């Protein structure tokens, strides 16, 4: 295992997972075999958890709404937060779930078609859970930046075409 190579691979494919093995080998001054091995290992170790695409759904015709829900819970004896987390993250509507420090315990990121759908989910699925003490729902109005990427259209090269 080559820790430095691993980190370099991750940094590159985190930004662009479509780089192929050959390109990665050139960029990182390594070999295709070494890169392939490291990637396979990292998939096995669940360091690489998938190869997704960053989509700005706002630019499509699809109706979609994202909400962030703060959830306060009472941890269960012997099981802590993990058991409750599992109850929550198994719903396919839940896109992300984080355990938080501070004023509340979980941050649930939820996607739905309408505000009503999200409110229904919160009131019928989330709030009634025994461990849940309270929820507070925040709707996302506009996404500016996601996964380190600004979502607006790529800026054109502002440089002059030829400079010394």
């Amino acid at each position, binding site marked *: 295992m080559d820790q430095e190579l691993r980190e370099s691979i991750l940094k*590159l494919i985190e930004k662009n997972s479509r*780089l192929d093995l050959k*390109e990665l080998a*050139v*960029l*990182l*001054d390594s070999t295709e075999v070494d890169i392939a091995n490291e990637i396979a290992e990292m998939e096995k170790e669940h360091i690489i958890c998938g190869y997704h695409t960053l989509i700005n759904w706002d630019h499509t015709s699809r109706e979609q709404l994202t909400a962030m829900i703060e959830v306060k819970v009472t941890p269960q004896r012997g099981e802590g937060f993990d058991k409750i987390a599992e109850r929550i993250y198994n719903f396919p509507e839940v896109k992300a779930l984080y355990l938080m420090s501070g004023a509340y315990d979980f941050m649930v990121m939820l996607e739905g078609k309408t505000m009503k759908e999200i409110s229904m989910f919160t009131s019928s699925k989330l709030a009634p859970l025994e461990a849940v003490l309270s929820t507070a729902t925040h709707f996302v109005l506009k996404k500016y930046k996601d996964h380190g990427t600004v979502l607006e259209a790529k800026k054109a*090269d502002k*440089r*002059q*075409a*030829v*400079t*010394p």
Partner: protein
Amino acid sequence: MKDMLSKKAVMLEPSGIRKFFDIVSEMPEAISLGVGEPDFDTPWRIREEGIYSLEKGRTFYTSNAGLVELRDEICRYLKRKYHMRYRNDEVIVSVGGSEGIDVALRAILNPGDEVIVPQPSFVCYVPCVIMSDGIPVTVELKEEDKFKLTRKQLEEVVTDKTKAIIMSFPNNPTGAIMTKRDLEPIADFAKEHDLLVISDEIYSELTYGHRHVSIGALPDMKERTIVINGFSKAFAMTGWRLGYAAAPKVIMEQMVKIHQYGIMAAPTTSQYAAVEALRACDDEVEEMKNSYNQRRRYLLHRFRELGLDCFEPEGAFYAFPCIKEFGMSSEKFAEELLKEQKVAIVPGTAFGACGEGYLRVSYAYSIDELKEALNRLGTFIEKLRR
């Protein structure tokens, strides 16, 4: 009106870049590998500091030599990075590295003094020497020497009138660097012949493999070296127009005087932003450098695939492939390439006559942009070879 113009000015050749630029600008759809500046935006924390300084109303002149705070940071930076010791009165903040070069030459030259200018190199050295009443004596760097300057080359051109050498490593346009071992004989030569060295180190942050060494850091060289550097390349700050020079006090006093009458002081906003650059942006600089290095490898790999002969550049963000096999001049090659494939690449001759047979390919572009441009270059070359 007779003799409206300065003969010296009229005699200056327009820059070869300018000429090529005029051709390219008639073809707005062309893609370019012709840019000599970073493609990255200035790191946000630097820009934010500039905005803050404006909000604070820091809109007045600074002292002529530049903000003391910034000069102190520059001294710390030179020590931390290149083991050079300067006091803040041995440093001047200039309007880009270019002004530093101009002021340095004007501070040291008397009419008839000769200045050795290794080429290919940045476009302003020869004209600036001429404008300072000096006589430029060019030396042709060779691909077989990896475009490094050698003692032998200096011996061939040195005369009693030689006053200084002006050189730049990491080099634009070749990407060549000079290691400590390469610099030592040059330093010895300068000492033996009592020459000054103007060392333009604007690309000092961008070396791949070897750490940059300044000739001014070699034993007994500080007293005869003027180091030119700046924020444009390392911090992606070309438009801020901010550079600096470091030189022994006797020379610096003259430089500050000339700068004072010509410029007054470098832009205040840029100076405040630059303080932040030197204090807090090492990580960003490192990230950009890694990125350039990846692109460098990609470019060289593609050149190899195309069978295009290219010496391995170890600094800056340029490669200098040889196109002699096609039997056409660099200018012709560049113009044909632009016409047929709509790719703008600067002919090597823009950086001195000895750049004939070469192209300067900038890799301050994203991998995707490089990929597209190289595909087109490949098509062009294949057609020539057929």
